[in-house]
């Protein structure tokens, strides 16, 4: 487990920070760094943008959840795990949340000694899922790009009587000259074909 992860805790606007202090000590001992305890107010998005935490901890019942949702969607290409805690000490809620693939991990209570193992599990799980998602997305993109490229090659072969290899060479040099990605160039050729018939 990597050390010195930057963690941000979000607490209700008017709540005392006593809990955060206790947690801070516990986390530091475990090698985690609670960089800030932020109130769930209007400035939350700015603070998070500035602090760039590796992990965010929030009460499952906080109305700041929707603000976080905004951050999750705005930064969805560089996701970070959001850990939730609840006072509701149901043994199965964390498992249910995980099984449902919820973007969060529910911790019963927020005692430092209990929170550390959960954070570890959450992070490992997050990283694994993220890796799978990235791979899936990469494969999907490659497949889509390959299809585009094949169709563009087909057009060049039909229109200009080129071999497949020649068509590909031509696409590649056009893309370089125009400073375009191969897939973007292929898309343009397909668009032009659509337009001109």
């Amino acid at each position, binding site marked *: 487990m990597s050390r010195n992860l930057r963690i941000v805790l979000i607490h209700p606007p008017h709540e005392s920070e006593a809990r955060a202090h206790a947690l801070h000590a516990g986390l530091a001992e475990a090698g985690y760094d609670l960089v800030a305890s932020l109130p769930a107010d209007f400035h939350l998005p700015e603070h998070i943008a500035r602090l760039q935490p590796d992990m965010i901890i929030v009460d499952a019942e906080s109305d700041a959840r929707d603000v976080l*949702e905004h951050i999750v969607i705005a930064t969805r290409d560089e996701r970070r795990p959001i850990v939730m805690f609840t006072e509701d000490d149901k043994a199965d809620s964390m498992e249910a949340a995980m099984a449902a693939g919820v973007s969060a991990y529910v911790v019963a209570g927020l005692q430092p000694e209990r929170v550390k193992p959960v954070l570890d599990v959450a992070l490992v799980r997050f990283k694994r899922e993220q890796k799978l998602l990235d791979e899936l997305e990469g494969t999907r993109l490659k497949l889509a790009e390959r299809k585009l490229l094949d169709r563009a090659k087909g057009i060049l072969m039909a229109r200009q009587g080129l071999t497949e290899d020649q068509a590909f060479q031509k696409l590649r040099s056009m893309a370089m000259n125009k400073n375009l990605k191969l897939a973007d160039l292929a898309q343009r050729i397909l668009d032009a074909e659509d337009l001109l018939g």
Partner: protein
Amino acid sequence: MQIEKDIVRIGFNPLTDCASLVMASVLGLDRKHGIRIVLSKETSWAGVRDKLLTGELDAAHALYGLVYATHLGVGSARRDMAILMNLNRNGQAITLSRRLVEEGVRDGTGVAALSHERELRWAQTFPTGTHAMWLYYWLAAYGVHPLREARVITVPPAQMATNLAAGHMDGFCAGEPWNHRAVMDGVGVTIATSQQIWPDHPEKVLATTADFVRRHPNTARALVAAVLEASRWIDASAANRMAMAEIISAVPYVNTGKDVIWQRILGHYDDGMGHTWEDAHSMRFHQEGAANFPYLSDGMWFMTQQKRWGLLKASPDYLGVALKVHQIALYKEAAEITETPIPASALRSSVLMDGTTWDGRDPERYAGSFDIRM
């Protein structure tokens, strides 16, 4: 028919348009159909979604866009979702800070002129939700690119008025009673109602997971029947609406003064700039079932806007997704039980504020037809 689950836990957020769910329970319409609704007041839409996914909630008062985003995997893990019925039409608004009114801004044109000079800060309630879509649509209709010429953030509805007063933002789009509340508190004015953007637009839905419907079809049908009857009761008379306002303003529900709720649900609008009117398209809960039928075109519209603003990166199979999410067959059965008229078509045609027609027939073309988009 055997009810598979007689206790139905329903989540709601404290807004005027949760009323039919509250009234179904308060009036005992749930028991009439063999179920018991247990209401659960929620603090966020993200929380509602998570609890639907974990099964902690059986169904919920939800934003259209939230259901589709979850179904398509935007912002959370992908999960097959279900819309049982529409809960209401109309009754949301865009509020502008009084400070800007003092600077001379009084309408959309004024907002646009100022937006070209400096970046205004707007808040909505959920990134993929209806309020974000109404705000974006309205700004774009006045020639303002909501994602390039404005700064849009998410703020919980109950915090809107405070942040407006503190000068943290220039305006917001949210459901009632929060817009009327801003007018009453003197911190903001209603610069546009959502029904001005789209008269009789769809708003909240009764949402659940596809899995819940598959496992509990009889419970789901009974729930729709009970909520249809509650919806009809609310729309039946002004006296019923007043009684509803009294009930939902209580602490366990919306938790606000009754005065904040009743005017706008009766159609009495005051924009806070000296203009008052009777609104022909104020919040509607039933309209002989028209407000409740889960039109495929209503659902597809939200997907076209999510595509327009880049929330959906690729075009979804609009009709295919809507057909899967909207539980039209189940709704029709519940409508028959409650003798609610069923429209002839699952598509309807509307003209929005910018004069464009949306009829659900070519969503892909429609999504790409806007000059201002991502």
